[in-house]
């Protein structure tokens, strides 16, 4: 499952997507809309994605995980549109025979997702201002 969605994400569905009989561990990661950035109060967030490319890049990350850890049960889903404080913006789940590889691969997946998957976050502040999040430059080429 590699998906961009407008719908509310149910973590159980993502976990279920990676279930397999030889898995002794499933590590899920949930990204949640936080109520502040650097102490400034956030009213809500708007996410935008280049959906077909985002889903392709998610599948590539799963391929990298397969090559690094030999794990082939990886799912990633990211919600777009307006998200309120406390809502789930992204879920990643990795299944593995043993927990160590599942933790490592799950961390790798979310870190890579934030590097190479074309998704943008717009912060709308409680004081009414808004801006696109500008992270540190990341170079891919």
């Amino acid at each position, binding site marked *: 499952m590699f998906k961009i969605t407008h719908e509310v994400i149910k973590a159980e569905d993502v976990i279920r997507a990676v279930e397999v009989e030889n898995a002794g561990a499933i590590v899920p990661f949930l990204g949640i809309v936080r109520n502040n950035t650097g102490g400034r109060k956030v009213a809500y967030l708007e996410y935008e994605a280049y959906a077909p*490319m985002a889903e392709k890049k998610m599948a590539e990350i799963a391929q990298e995980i397969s090559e690094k850890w030999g794990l082939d049960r990886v799912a990633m889903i990211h919600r777009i549109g307006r998200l309120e404080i406390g809502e789930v913006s992204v879920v990643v789940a990795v299944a593995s025979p043993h927990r160590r590889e599942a933790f490592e691969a799950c961390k790798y997946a979310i870190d890579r997702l934030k590097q190479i998957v074309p998704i*943008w976050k717009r912060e709308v502040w409680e004081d009414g201002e808004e801006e696109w999040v500008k992270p540190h430059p990341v170079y*891919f080429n």
Partner: protein
Amino acid sequence: MKVKVKYFAVCHEMLGRDEEDMELPEGAVLMDILKRLEEEWPEIAEYYEIMQMSVNWEYATEQTVLSDGDEVALIPPVTGGKDV
């Protein structure tokens, strides 16, 4: 030849549209699209160091040669997020 160009986030906002078809000469490269956009949005040059571009859903460089029907996107920095 004709390519589709898609704009996201700050690019969408600054240009006031989310995509357009662009006529380009044969042999055009991605940089040619940026040069054309500079005419209406000169400040786009400030984003070059941090902005990526893609062709048909794959990251590409300024010198990537385009073909008729390609789907190009300007990809400003993605959400990133601090590791906290």
